[in-house]
């Protein structure tokens, strides 16, 4: 294993460049170093002007998503040694506007997320005296996988539909809608279906499946969207064959 490795880092300095350029740095490569350690080494020792986001270093905060050798990755969970002898190309997440260097603008997702109502919707709240909304472990298992999302945006970066059609609501937001639909305490699935059952919602997805492959938390957004399509199709069939009251 090499003791040093070259990082090819994409730089974008809007005050002096019209488009991104590339800069190479040589960093140490101990076997327990992740790509983020390499970036921190650059920032501390080689070039303090490099900008990137990070926080927890443990795959919880979802801040350090970047393209590593063309693949969306959490840089805190991607070991440099896997890419030996290098070089390793580090780019900002694809499909997002670049603010500076490796920092992307994800306001689009932040605006879309609340539109799918990712919270528990009740038609009528139970009186406090009746106690909490209880759930069995089986009911929890129904949605738990989809609740693991950390909003790291790797799925949006892997999704060519989002790259080509920015109005697409996108994998993480739809998976989060499904997380609440499958929650036994929730009663908002009708409202969400009306919103998501169109071309910018679930029907925009062509099931490329890359969102699921790159998800660091094994959320399976592609699965969530396909299940949602099945629900929407059955709902349409019911509306077609059954009188309104029976639905």
């Amino acid at each position, binding site marked *: 294993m090499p003791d040093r490795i070259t990082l090819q880092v994409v730089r974008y300095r809007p005050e002096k460049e019209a488009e991104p350029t590339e800069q190479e740095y040589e960093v140490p490569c101990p076997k327990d170093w992740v790509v983020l350690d390499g970036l921190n080494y650059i920032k501390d020792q080689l070039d303090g002007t490099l900008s990137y986001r990070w926080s927890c270093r443990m795959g919880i905060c979802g801040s350090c998503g970047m393209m590593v050798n063309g693949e969306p990755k959490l840089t805190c969970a991607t070991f440099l040694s896997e890419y030996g002898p290098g070089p390793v190309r580090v780019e900002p997440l*694809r499909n997002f506007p670049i603010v500076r260097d490796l920092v992307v*603008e994800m306001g689009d997702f932040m605006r879309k997320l609340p539109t799918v109502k990712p919270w528990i919707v009740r038609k009528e709240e139970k009186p406090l005296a009746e106690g909490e909304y209880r759930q069995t472990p*089986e009911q929890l298992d129904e949605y738990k996988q989809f609740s693991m999302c950390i909003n790291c945006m790797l799925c949006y970066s892997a999704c*060519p539909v989002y790259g*080509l059609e920015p109005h697409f609501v996108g994998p993480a937001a739809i998976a989060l809608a499904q997380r609440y639909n499958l929650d036994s305490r929730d009663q908002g699935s009708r409202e969400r279906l009306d919103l998501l059952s169109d071309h910018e919602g679930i029907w925009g997805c062509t*099931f*490329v*499946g890359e969102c699921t*492959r790159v998800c660091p938390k094994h959320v399976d957004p592609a699965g969530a969207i396909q299940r949602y399509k099945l629900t929407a199709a059955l709902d349409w069939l019911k509306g077609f064959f059954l009188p309104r009251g029976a639905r």
Partner: protein
Amino acid sequence: MNQPPHAYTDFHPRWYRPRLSTYWWLDRWPYLAFILRELSSVFVAWAVVYLLFLVQALARGASSYRQFLDWSASPGIVLLNVVALAFLCFHAVTWFNLAPQAMVVHMRGKRVPGMWIAISNYVAWAVVSLLVIWLLVARD
């Protein structure tokens, strides 16, 4: 002031907005596999049209059916059908492998593992294929 405070950033002049290349699907194998899977639907449609031609020829009588067989034996149609068969198999295999992601089946309160859903699709495929072969061969 009706617009939200962040609205001005929609047209931020200094953000670099990369465009997805027209050839994005050549970037990586999973994207190419997806495009091939989408393309396979054209060959599925061809297979249906070919079957309809066959039924039509049969309905018109023996000479028409003979003509259809001769047409089918021409090199162009044979080549087309060989390519179509390859794409049809690719179509079936990729969709069967994706089925567990879309279908969640519960039996006796427990979720059936995805592998079993894929396997049941393959079994159904094999049963139908065997039935067709039996109809064609064994009943001669």
